[in-house]
């Protein structure tokens, strides 16, 4: 039934005859997509403005990008952001892959829905609560590892983001291939290494990329958990934006924006691969 339904939607029908289209909805949606992208376009365009004004256009220039790259504070913050994101992504992706395999394939584990619930938990708690709770916990146990504190906090809330695409990929995979490998006398670790993981790889990449952008974009948890001197790019941007707008910030923001867009698109593209 659902097949017929999908086929139906692919047939081209003149618009006024189409029972599915409602008057005004397509214009409304066009307007919506403009609303969604307009502010970002303005941000990007004015990062190439030669004038210091962030609203009056003068002429094209990449001077603000050079200025941003030469800025010591930005360099330091960018380096911190990268270190944190790389480690948090690594840990979160490994943990999420293990958990997805255990929940999806192991027959010995009970209470699977409880474990799934725990893994999804970070998505259910408002970020500000996670932020102050983590701060409280770190101060209660006296943990002070500099960037390490932030890496731990990021790993925890990146796990569900890495977990979801991996789990989805695993659910769509034919378990028959793994059974066949075992029938042909492959042992468990060979099956995992030669069959399961290669098939799962697109899901793992997709999850890792989502974890990476979630970490590199995070603001509120980092703001609360970061110790003095452990600034990340979003924290730096926030500090400047509160005082006023500079084209330099537009340039830094544009770079972060482009990184995110590349990663989401890649994640989507790799995740879709069969």
């Amino acid at each position: 039934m659902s097949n017929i339904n999908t086929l139906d939607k692919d047939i081209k029908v003149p618009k006024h005859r189409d029972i599915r289209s409602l008057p005004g909805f397509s214009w409304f949606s066009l307007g919506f997509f403009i609303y969604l992208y307009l502010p970002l376009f303005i941000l990007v365009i004015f990062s190439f403005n030669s004038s210091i004004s962030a609203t009056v256009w003068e002429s094209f220039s990449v001077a603000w990008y050079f200025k941003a790259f030469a800025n010591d504070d930005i360099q330091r913050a960018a380096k911190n952001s990268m270190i944190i994101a790389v480690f948090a992504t690594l840990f979160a992706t490994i943990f999420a892959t293990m958990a997805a395999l255990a929940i999806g394939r192991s027959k010995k584990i009970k209470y699977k829905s409880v474990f799934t619930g725990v893994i999804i938990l970070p998505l259910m708690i408002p970020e500000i609560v996670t932020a102050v709770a983590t701060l409280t916990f770190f101060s209660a146990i006296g943990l002070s590892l500099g960037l390490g504190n932030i890496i731990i906090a990021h790993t925890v809330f990146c796990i569900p983001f890495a977990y979801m695409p991996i789990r989805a990929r695993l659910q769509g995979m034919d378990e028959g291939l793994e059974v066949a490998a075992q029938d042909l006398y492959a042992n468990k670790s060979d099956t995992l290494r030669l069959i399961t993981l290669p098939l799962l790889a697109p899901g793992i990449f997709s999850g890792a990329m989502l974890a990476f952008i979630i970490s590199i974009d995070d603001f509120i948890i980092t703001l609360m958990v970061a110790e003095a001197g452990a600034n990340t790019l979003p924290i730096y941007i926030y500090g400047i934006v509160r005082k006023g707008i500079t084209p330099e910030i537009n340039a830094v923001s544009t770079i972060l924006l482009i990184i995110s867009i590349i990663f989401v698109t890649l994640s989507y593209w790799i995740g879709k691969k069969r």
Partner: protein
Amino acid sequence: MKLIKDILNRYKGVLPASLSIGIFMLIPILIIVVYSFMIPNPNGGVRTGFSLASYQKLFYDYDLFDNLVFNAGYLKIIFRSLWISIISVVASLLVGFPVAYYIAMQNTERRNLLILLITIPFWTNLLIRTYSWILVLRDTGLINSTLMSLGIIDEPITLLYTEGAIVLGLVYTYVPFMILPIYASLERLDIRLIEACRDLYSTKWDALRYVVFPLAKPGIIAGSILVFIPSIGAFIAPELLGGGKNLMLGSLVQLQFSSGRNWPFGSALAVVIMSVVLIALLIQAYNARKNGSEIVH
């Protein structure tokens, strides 16, 4: 010993993920609940001892003579947060439903492209997306400078640092949470139901109202919860677009843990946020069960 070994061996796959979330998220949240019943330490942190002072502070304050007097200040902030979140949910629904319907009715290829276009901003930096609205809304921003150069207005209208700006920012940030679940429920919609309506002489709008809308209800409820949860604890939009003068719960909590140095009170406020979220989730679970049983019947 053998039993522990056996359990460890059996659960070793899920342990790293669930232990790290358990230790660094569940336990911290329990600590927050405990802290909300303790006494503040003026240097930050808490002193041991049981006290309900933090919850009392939500309603009452001490005056000059140490008498308890009713203080609506914090309640006002809580209700403002609830109010702004609810308005944001309604606005997201009004904006999101037509878009979700439009996308669901496209052919497969266009559908996938449009969904990707919805998700891209959703994954990009929240701070930057909110900041970009400052460029549009401020007195010398895009809207005001366009209206002024067209001669429609002589003086800039105050758009930034209003409650409206906060709602605009929240809707902008969270409307994908509304569109995606509605789209998911509309995508499975059987077109022949609409055909049947039209064959029986209903108008397009009646078909929408009596057939499409009820079928989209699970998506609408899920979307409303997903917009509501991050809105109630929002921090960036109220700070940047509300200018810190329209204080909301998120900022108030952050304040208690930074310059306010009243951790128990901040914890109590966090407990308030979590309770509101829990109620919202229970409503959703109840609705999901109700809708689930309807399908079975």
